[in-house]
């Protein structure tokens, strides 16, 4: 249990520590020290996660609970099984390599304190998502990843494009997050629990529920936005504005894998229906195809990798969508492969960018000689991405092909395998574009400065990752039993056994691979012509891209609408606000009472007795109220209003309620004085003469309020919708709370929460008044200079 808490909260604690030490850290000469210290955090997390592997393989999934709001089943609880271990290893392992890489990458000019602060926060949030066992906990961490990735993507916040990219990522993943929350609530209403491990065992209940489709759709919307699935993929290429270590981290192993993770996590509960296969598998295949199609067009290496990530994520999503035992195993293998080779490639792009001053293929080329070590890493990673033998990518590509051959619920034979091969052609082409254009052929233009290789520190992480890529291909058994099998088991719910090997004999997948390579080479040879056609299409038909919808529809369309709406409801006129509030109140009250068919029983009204004193008070009260509305002078109006209050208090005395009477007297006394003090600010007389129509509207509303409230008061006296709880309070007051003044006990004890928030509102109100009166004065000189609106 302690280990779990360390895994999740150590990154947060470390980032908090950096935050509080930042005034001190900003002052001293940091150099590379902070990076090395930070690297300890993912190292500790990684070793803690690895220590769980043995236990999980023997005992199965573990859960820990720390209750919080027990009544509603909201608790901090963690689930440790194969799937969370796999993602935990990716997050902390690649996190470690990224931190080491960033030590080289970040120059001394950069704000390292902020960088490591955000990075650790993000790492903690990701670990929280994958280890959460409670839907609310998971959602909280999920939103935290959105926020921290916003900070990371916008790290160079003085660049316009960074801010645009960060905003786009936040908006799209944020909208998805809200949809996901709605989905979680539907899921709760199906299962009656927030506990993920319990939900996973209730697959049959969920699938047969009428809410199945909306719940799945909403949750998948969250996953699709996060994992950059079509048509929400548009945020990912813009997120490339982030520093390269961030891109390597966010887009290989973490942020974009969160959606994959959640789809995998919930697949025991949701998969196995035609809707699941169509939605998840269909979106996945579409994304794979479109991502690949876009990737071959890019000349910016980072953009190429961004679109290739979209394509690869689509492929993983599709494998999860097929929902068979074999496809889930294939997905797990590819998650691992993709994280390794994609992180390596991003880091290589960072090195190229650093060494040449640009990463655009128009300027960069033939780097084989100048960057021999980077070339070796890129060679391994690109061939693995293209799915060529002896590397990990080949194994998972073969498994992908195999799983497309056996998809349930798809009527047309050969359709999906053909699309898979077709999409893989693009994968092959962009992998080779990266490798051949970047390292072999000469570029049309010269780079800003002569290329040079990165030092050992910069190469360390990519080389480690390339080694992993090779190991995944040559000795997959190293990972399959301890890490991949438990993860696949967690996805399908059935014990998985993986037989990973490069050679399976001549079978259908091998033939598909053969065609991919042959056709891929042909496509690669014609790449320049294909790109020219693509550029023409996008120039002629700009609205084909979902970016068009985001830029024109969202960024330019929504703000004017909200502004107009806001100006309408926030007019700044107090009377207008009161009018709106009162009208809404009356409409809702009338609607409820009419729909329930409540009627007033006049008999009880006629039987009600009234003493002479009470009657007199009532008459005076009415007189004072009418006088208030007639006075032209404000001070008279206020005093008359105060009189109504005192008369009400007197009425309480007559009815025998000393507590209420006392309170009312004091409130009235203090508030009359305070209102009089306010009148420094406003003219003594009501100058503005309202128009006839405003007067009519005001009078109508007042009359409606008066009549409805009278009606309700009389009805409350008459009817008892529920049993009165007065007796309970009278009895329990002394026994439970040790007080004989029931009114006071109710205030401070039984309804203590109300009082708590009331005094909080009080305090907030005074802060608001303080701000209005004191701060406005200070701001005045500025306002006078500004043009009046």
């Amino acid at each position, binding site marked *: 249990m302690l280990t779990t808490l360390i895994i999740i909260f150590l990154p947060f604690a470390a980032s908090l520590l950096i935050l509080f030490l930042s005034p001190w850290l900003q002052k001293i000469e940091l150099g590379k020290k902070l990076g090395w210290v930070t690297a300890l955090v993912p190292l500790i997390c990684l070793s803690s996660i690895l220590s769980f592997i043995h236990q999980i393989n023997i005992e199965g999934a573990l859960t820990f609970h720390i209750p919080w709001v027990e009544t509603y089943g909201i608790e901090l609880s963690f689930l440790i099984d194969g799937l969370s271990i796999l993602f935990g290893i990716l997050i902390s392992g690649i996190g470690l390599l990224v931190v080491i890489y960033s030590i080289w990458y970040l120059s001394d000019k950069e704000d390292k304190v902020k960088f490591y602060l955000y990075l650790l926060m993000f790492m903690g949030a990701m670990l929280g998502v994958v280890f959460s066992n409670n839907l609310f906990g998971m959602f909280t961490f999920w939103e935290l990843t959105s926020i921290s990735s916003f900070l990371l993507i916008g790290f160079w916040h003085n660049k316009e494009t960074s801010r645009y990219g960060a905003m786009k990522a936040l908006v799209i993943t944020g909208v998805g997050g809200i949809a996901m929350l709605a989905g979680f609530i539907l899921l709760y209403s199906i299962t009656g629990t927030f506990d993920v491990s319990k939900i996973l065992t209730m697959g049959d209940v969920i699938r047969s529920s009428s809410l199945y489709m909306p719940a799945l759709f909403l949750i998948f919307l969250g996953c699709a936005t996060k994992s950059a699935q079509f048509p929400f993929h548009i945020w990912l290429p813009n997120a490339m504005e982030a520093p390269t270590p961030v891109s390597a981290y966010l887009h290989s192993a973490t942020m974009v894998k969160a959606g994959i993770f959640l789809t995998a996590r919930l697949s025991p509960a949701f998969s196995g229906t035609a809707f699941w296969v169509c939605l998840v598998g269909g979106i996945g295949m579409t994304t794979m195809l479109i991502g690949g199609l876009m990737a071959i067009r890019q000349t910016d290496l980072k953009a190429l990798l961004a679109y290739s990530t979209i394509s690869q994520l689509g492929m993983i999503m599709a494998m999860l969508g097929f929902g068979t035992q074999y496809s889930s195993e294939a997905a797990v293998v590819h998650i691992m492969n993709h994280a390794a080779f994609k992180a390596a490639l991003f880091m290589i792009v960072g090195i190229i960018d650093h060494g040449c001053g640009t990463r655009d293929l128009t300027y960069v080329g033939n780097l084989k000689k100048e960057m021999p070590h980077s070339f070796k890493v890129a060679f391994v990673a690109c061939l693995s991405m293209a799915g060529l033998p002896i590397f990990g990518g080949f194994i998972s590509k073969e498994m992908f092909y195999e799983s497309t051959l056996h998809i349930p619920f798809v009527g047309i034979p050969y359709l999906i395998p053909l699309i898979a091969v077709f999409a893989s052609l693009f994968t092959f082409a962009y992998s080779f574009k990266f490798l051949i254009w970047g390292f072999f052929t000469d570029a049309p233009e010269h780079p800003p400065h002569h290329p040079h290789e990165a030092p050992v520190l910069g190469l360390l992480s990519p080389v480690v990752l390339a080694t992993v890529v090779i190991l995944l291909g040559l000795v997959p058994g190293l990972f399959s039993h301890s890490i991949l099998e438990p993860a696949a088991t967690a996805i399908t719910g059935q014990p998985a056994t993986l037989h990973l090997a490069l050679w399976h004999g001549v079978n259908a997948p091998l033939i598909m691979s053969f065609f991919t390579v042959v056709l891929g080479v042909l496509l690669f040879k014609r790449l320049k012509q294909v790109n020219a056609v693509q550029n023409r299409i996008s120039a002629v038909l700009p609205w084909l891209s979902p970016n068009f919808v985001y830029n024109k529809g969202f960024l330019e369309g929504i703000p004017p609408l909200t502004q107009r709406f806001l100006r309408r409801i926030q007019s700044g006129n107090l009377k207008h606000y009161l009018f709106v509030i009162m009208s809404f109140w009356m409409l809702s009250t009338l609607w409820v009472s009419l729909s329930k068919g409540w009627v007033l029983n006049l008999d009880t009204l006629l039987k009600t007795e009234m003493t002479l004193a009470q009657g007199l008070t009532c008459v005076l009260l009415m007189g004072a109220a009418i006088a208030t509305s007639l006075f032209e002078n404000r001070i008279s109006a206020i005093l008359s209003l105060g009189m109504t209050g005192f008369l009400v208090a007197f009425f309480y005395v007559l009815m025998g309620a000393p507590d209420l009477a006392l309170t009312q007297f004091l409130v009235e006394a203090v508030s009359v004085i305070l209102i009089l003090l306010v009148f*420094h600010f406003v003219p003594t007389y009501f100058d503005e003469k309202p128009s006839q129509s405003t007067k009519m509207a005001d009078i109508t509303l007042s009359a409606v309020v008066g009549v409805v409230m009278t009606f309700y008061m009389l009805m409350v006296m008459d009817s008892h919708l529920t049993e009165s709880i007065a007796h309970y309070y009278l009895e329990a007051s002394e026994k439970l709370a040790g007080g004989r*003044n029931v009114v006071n006990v109710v*205030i*401070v004890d039984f309804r203590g929460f109300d009082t*708590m928030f009331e005094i*909080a509102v009080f305090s907030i109100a005074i802060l608001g008044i303080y701000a209005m*009166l004191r701060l406005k004065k200070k701001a005045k000189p500025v306002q006078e200079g500004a043009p009046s609106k």
Partner: protein
Amino acid sequence: MTSLIFQTITRLVSPILMIFSLYLLFRGHQLPGGGFIAGLMTSAGLVLIYLAYGCERFDWRNRSRFFYYLFSGGLALSFLTGLAGLFVGGFFLKSGVAHVHMPLINEEWEFASAAIFDLGVYFVVCGVCVSLMTLLGEER
């Protein structure tokens, strides 16, 4: 407003108001009274002084800081009472009663944690009302 009659009456009445408000505060749990009423009554006393002697005499402007601390402190006190309930009693705002035998006067006294909460309410009400008064009454 400098009226001798008003000032004299204020000298007489405001101490009584203050003491009576404290009386209401402490008996609140058993008899009519309580933090809200007591807070209002204390503020009424202070408002009287303010009105009778004006803003300068007691340097309200500089002293108003005290009342900001008062209401923030009161809010914190109430919240901490709630937290204490969480840690001691198991849930937020759980109240408790202790009967303590006082040695010298040989009586059984009752201490309710709700009374501390009520004290917080008293501070908030009093602090807010007086701060509001000084803010609104400032010369402009």
